[in-house]
């Protein structure tokens, strides 16, 4: 009955992702509102809950405009190329012990590989629109996402080493103590790099509305724009899900709630953090983004990787009461130490 499992689980996943995205759109807009001391959308339905539905209907009814000079097949395919991988990532996220579409033994590798394809979709959008703003945004994305992939993978490797497996289900099962305590630095690096990967503030250079109109989305309208919008939030959902699975213990938690409920609670917590970051930080310049990745995050991730390897080999990580304070201290020392070497020439410059 393999096909039945696949069919049913795919349907469940679709429902989960679509409803998750709708909820996230509402949650982010309300949350940002609260951070900015305003109510946020509150007219459509109770608490504005129907706002995403209203948005979706509006987007569906819009005219689909294709620029005359556009590379039409590319312009048409780009939203799909971006959307499908964002969706496919959820295939390996465990919602409970073994409750996942496909328990790949290389789950995390699969996620990394699949989610890199989204960049291609975005670049296709920028190229196919034949618009300078689209292309500018797309170029920035390529530069940024290819760079941030490296610290991202390195930070995940810490968790993988601790668990000794690439399967997400095994990683969850290996977390007697959530890895965020054993890998605080890895978690921070992962969150930073993931924010850059999914192009959220402060790394939202590709659609920086105040500089380049809407970046790669400039020439998109109607359902294609809707797909990009969906992709953006599906990515945010997947990043929150991966962070909860890798570092926060995934579906495991006290038994009074079922596993998927714990996962959803953790996803919402991580997403709240993402909104918090968005409400706080201004956008970085592209050179700052790049130097931050290569000069700060990458060395930090490498050191973290080596230190974690030593800790795993020496068996220190087996006794959490020593390992947790040690790791927290280590993270603080490394961050402070490395930031003394790292200067972007921003507000704090004292060359």
């Amino acid at each position: 009955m393999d096909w039945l499992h696949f069919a049913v689980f795919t349907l469940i996943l679709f429902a989960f992702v679509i409803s998750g995205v709708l909820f996230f759109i509402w949650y982010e807009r309300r949350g940002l509102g609260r951070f900015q001391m305003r109510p946020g959308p509150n007219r459509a339905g109770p608490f504005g809950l129907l706002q995403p539905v209203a948005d979706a209907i509006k987007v569906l009814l819009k005219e689909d405009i294709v620029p005359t000079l556009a590379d039409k097949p590319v312009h048409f395919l780009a939203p799909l190329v971006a959307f499908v991988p964002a969706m496919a990532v959820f295939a390996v996220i465990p919602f409970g012990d073994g409750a996942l579409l496909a328990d790949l033994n290389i789950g995390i590798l699969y996620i990394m590989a699949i989610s890199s394809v989204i960049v291609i979709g975005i670049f296709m959008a920028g190229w196919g629109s034949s618009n300078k703003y689209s292309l500018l945004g797309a170029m920035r994305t390529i530069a940024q996402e290819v760079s941030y992939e490296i610290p991202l993978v390195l930070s995940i490797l810490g968790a993988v080493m601790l668990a000794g497996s690439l399967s997400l289900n095994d990683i969850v099962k290996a977390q007697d103590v959530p890895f965020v305590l054993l890998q605080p630095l890895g978690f921070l690096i992962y969150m930073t790099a993931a924010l850059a990967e999914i192009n959220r503030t402060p790394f939202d250079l590709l659609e920086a509305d105040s500089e380049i109109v809407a970046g790669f989305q400039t020439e998109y309208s109607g359902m294609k724009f809707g797909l990009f919008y969906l992709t953006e939030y599906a990515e945010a959902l997947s990043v929150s899900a991966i962070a909860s699975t890798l570092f926060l213990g995934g579906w495991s938690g006290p038994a009074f709630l079922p596993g998927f409920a714990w996962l959803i609670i953790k996803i919402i917590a991580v997403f709240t953090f993402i909104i918090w970051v968005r409400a706080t930080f201004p956008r970085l310049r592209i050179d700052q983004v790049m130097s931050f990745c290569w000069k700060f995050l990458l060395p930090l991730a490498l050191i973290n990787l080596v230190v974690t390897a030593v800790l795993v080999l020496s068996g220190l990580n087996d006794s959490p009461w020593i390992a947790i304070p040690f790791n927290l201290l280590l993270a603080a020392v490394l961050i402070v130490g490395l930031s003394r070497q790292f200067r972007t020439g921003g507000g704090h410059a004292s060359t």
Partner: protein
Amino acid sequence: MPPLKHFGEGLLRGLKITARHLGRKWITVQYPEQKLTMSRRVRGTDIIWDRESCISCRACERACPVGAIKMEVSRGEDKKLKTDDITVDLGLCIFCGLCIESCPTGVSIYIGYNYANTTYRCTHCATDKSGTSPSNGHCGELIRSNDELLPNDAVRPRSGYYRPERAGELPPQTLLVYQTTYGEDRRRKKESR
């Protein structure tokens, strides 16, 4: 060793500030249902003219230092002056109030402080020839809806600027800096009790 800073503590400070904003009350209001109190010192947002009481003496037009008022006056069959058209260019108006002081009837032109300065196309009220709006019957122009056009001087809303004797009773200006967090509110209530 230099002091321990520049490790991204600015980021933490920023996060702390936004987190504190979470508990604050909204500083925006839900406009059609709620309105902010207009300052008692506001000089006005609108010039409102009353056709019924105007005697077409053109005193206001002459008094206006910036020439914002344009009137067309003609003598009707009964030898009475009547106003054919009056326009007030609110882009020019400096809300000095000289037109009001100069008006011999005292109530024909005044500064309103409407919340919404809505205008309608004249065609929307083509049937309404007896209305009191300026430019009524002159189609193709934007006309103003003067919802404050009340005949009685006493009930006509005016800002405190023009009624110093009543200004004290008006609600104070809504200053957004008065907004506090829920926690601070509760503490203050407890202290005042």
